[in-house]
């Protein structure tokens, strides 16, 4: 049951999904349903990005499936001219798992929200991640429950005042990237709804990854949590907060790359320092392909609930056997070893005959 058995390293995330020569355009991926999000909702930007990204995969449209749960973001599949399931709250990863395991010829995507994925659906999410099922999960994190009109979510900052927490929430939130890494995720990335370029990059890498790819997308909800990510969008300050992760590159950021991420040798913790104050070499180099998720995890800890420092891009991207490939390999192995013989199965070993 190792990667080698299956010659996995060669397999890309889309291996086995039929492609087409026909050129595709974004509009080919627009469904006939009119989009029903609030004006200004970040979901529009993500939808547009996905619709213009999908054609670049060159897949047959009918071999793409989007599965979602319940929430504003989970309306996503209706607006894409692919196959789609708008399922029930929190269960999309489970449903998508059954589909992916039985249909290697499909590119299966999950669209979910911070409540859908991390609150009611948390268990399915972490198990999907550890199993490394070949699914691409887009987690729309607006740090609020949108569809139910504004209760706090597992990613809301502590003390959040909402309809259900008039005195402020008393929950310590999840850090979705830390949680995913703790759950053995093989691909974890983060992007902003507003940054079409990086979002597309990340989506491309996710699609190419064989196994579960979790993409956290910071998404603005103008109605119930407006401006949650403004500091990351404000041209004046965003460079001080966003830490773009580039594989093989030293992790530097800031308007003039004046900041760098360095490791405290005593504790192993990562810190942001003015590069002028540390020697060049001490700025750590990003390597998403490390088997050991320690550094990716350390990077996720740079972000606390006020979003002061937010690494974006790909935290982790390693090759590992997928649940569905191995499950199918076992079927094949069994079929090669044992021909189908229904009569034989029914008859079994110990029989007796009653003659008349």
């Amino acid at each position, binding site marked *: 049951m190792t990667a080698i058995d299956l010659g996995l390293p060669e397999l890309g995330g889309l291996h086995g999904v039929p492609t087409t020569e026909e050129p595709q355009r974004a509009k080919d991926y627009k469904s006939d349903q009119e989009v029903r999000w609030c004006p200004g909702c970040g979901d529009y930007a993500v939808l547009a990005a996905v619709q213009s990204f999908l054609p670049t995969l060159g897949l047959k449209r009918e071999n793409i499936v989007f599965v979602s749960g319940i929430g504003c973001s989970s309306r996503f599949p209706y607006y894409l001219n692919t196959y789609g399931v708008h399922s*029930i709250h929190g*269960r999309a990863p*489970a449903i998508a798992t059954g589909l992916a395991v039985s249909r290697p010829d499909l590119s299966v995507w999950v669209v979910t929200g911070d409540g859908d994925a991390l609150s009611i659906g948390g268990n399915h999410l972490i198990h999907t991640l550890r199993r490394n099922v070949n699914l691409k999960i887009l987690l729309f994190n607006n740090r609020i429950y949108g569809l139910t009109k504004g209760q706090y979510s597992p990613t809301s900052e502590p003390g959040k005042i909402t309809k259900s927490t008039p005195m402020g929430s008393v929950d310590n939130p999840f850090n979705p990237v830390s949680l995913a890494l703790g759950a053995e995720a093989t691909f974890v990335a983060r992007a902003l709804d507003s940054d079409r370029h990086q979002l597309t990059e990340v989506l491309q890498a996710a699609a190419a990854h064989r196994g579960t790819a979790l993409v956290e997308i910071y998404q603005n909800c103008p109605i119930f949590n407006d401006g949650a990510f403004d500091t990351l969008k404000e041209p004046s300050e965003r460079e001080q907060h966003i830490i773009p992760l580039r594989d093989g590159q030293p992790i530097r950021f800031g308007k003039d790359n004046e900041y760098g991420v360095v490791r405290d040798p005593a504790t192993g913790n990562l810190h942001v320092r003015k590069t002028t104050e540390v020697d060049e070499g001490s700025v750590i180099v990003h390597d998403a392909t490390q088997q050991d998720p320690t550094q990716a995890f350390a990077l996720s800890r740079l972000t606390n609930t006020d979003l002061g420092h937010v690494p974006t891009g790909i935290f982790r991207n390693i090759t590992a056997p997928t649940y569905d490939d191995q499950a199918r390999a076992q079927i094949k192995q069994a079929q090669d070893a044992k021909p*189908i013989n229904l009569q034989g199965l029914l008859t079994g070993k110990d029989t007796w005959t009653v003659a008349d």
Partner: protein
Amino acid sequence: MSVEVGNGVSAGGPEVRKLDRVVIRFAGDSGDGMQLTGDRFTSEAAAFGNDLATLPNFPAEIRAPQGTLPGVSSFQLHFADYDILTPGDRPDVLVVMNPAALKANVGDLPAGGVLIINTDEFTKRNLTKVGYAVDPLGDGSLDSFQVHQVAMATLTQGALESTGLGKKDADRCKNMFALGLLSWMYHRPTEGTEAFLRDKFAGKPDIAEANVLAFRAGWNYGETTEAFAVTYEVAPAKLATGTYRQITGNTALAYGIIAAGQQARLPVVLGSYPITPASDILHELSKHKNYGVTTIQAEDEIAGIGAALGAAYGGALGVTTTSGPGVALKSETIGLAVMTELPLLVIDVQRGGPSTGLPTKTEQADLLQAMFGRNGEAPVPIIAPQSPGDTFDAVLDAVRIALTYRTPVLLLSDGAIANGSEPWLIPDAADLPDLSVTFATEPNAPDGSDTFWPYLRDPETLARPWAVPGTPGLQHRIGGLEKADGTGAISYDPDNHDHMVRLRQAKIDGIPVPDAVVDDPAGDARVLVLGWGSSYGPIGAACRRVRRKGMSVAQVHLRHLNPFPANLGDLLRRYERVVVPEMNLGQLALLLRAKYLVDAISYTKVAGLPFKAEELEGVLTDLITSQ
């Protein structure tokens, strides 16, 4: 009690009595391997050609503490030279391996019954453990039985001395000694067991040898000692001609799923989470991947049915297996399957409830949960097998309905069926029904527009098309929000909702199911007994007893609980009295009364055990005579 059908004396040896039927119960500590012993004797009986029925009974703990009452595990086997319907009410022969087993079971042994006791375990300590102040072997409390005291452990140890096997391992073989002795008493073939043992312990040849030796020692003990004056013969049963095998309910059910996949030419995807008494279905299916069966042990029941539903959307035969508590968790997703109108097989192996209840005991109390356990109006067909072998056919029937009508189907088995076994007339694979389906391949919009309407219906079945991903041009979205009939678009239109609610109901109500068949040999019965599920055996046996007494009773056993057979209403009204025995508080009776306004009498017992034929015989007799 067994009826003697003739005597004979084998030269020199003990007298041989011919019997038509015998009920044997092996009882011992969970650690004593009683289930294995019973299984083997069952196989011997089967191989010999008897008809048989079995009833395993074990504690919820894996191994309750040795020698305690909660630790007692038993296996009852009923075999006969004619077709029988139940594992028997009470044993004719009781084998007890320790004081706890004696205490827990002797109450069921009728006076004059044969009682075989492994005396080695009757130590002061073990006796007090179960509250025997004085040793029952000495105080005459067993005088009403034919008691045989056998130091099985000692004798086994002796027989294995040569092997140099450790005392502990040797002691583990004493159940085979008991089996050997009983096999001798009932003239059972022995090759099967020896082969079985060698095969089972192939890895540990010395253990295999030891067990075989112990088995033979038991046999020889009967043969050589004068202890047993009589042996018994139970001739092969004159069952319908054909080739038989012994099968348990869970195995037959698993085979049914495999066969259904083959007959539908669809891959099978089982999404399941282990739970007693359904786990063995998962275990069995996971052995047969070569039939294109994928088994997913999910993180919980919800993920299990979710995976099955996702696979169904992808064009596989989606199956999920569980017990009552699991069905409760799956109910929301069953509702989604109803709304998305996808085929799905949901198997509930019922156990004692409510809540965790009695996990290893049997019950029929999930019928109304199956009918109504979902939010909103979410009708599903319900099917129940009536015996271990019957689960095979029930599954094929359920899958046919699921695929034809694009609906989740609930199949209600139970603990007695799941673990019980019976001879099974092996079906001819070539005669199995064709379950093949056709997926949608073309746009179908009636308005001529070249689009696909996922909720356009077949006028016959009211089923919607099954368009699987990968089919060009049929891209569509489904989900849990109300759908506009035809186009399948989300619809909040009041009239559409009312229409769809009734349509989903009509689709299920309209499923044609075979008429209910009445069994009334005399044809003049005024009392009808109606049952479902595993009570088929005891009800049938009770009817026979009643009829033997010269009274008439009509029997109907329902396989289809939703929808009901079309003729059921008329049929119920034809009898002066209708009695419905159930292992619940009257769930089927409630449905019948509501639908047909017949004053069905509900006779219920919720003790975690199958009905006894004797008990139902009484109920029927009273009803018939009190008219």
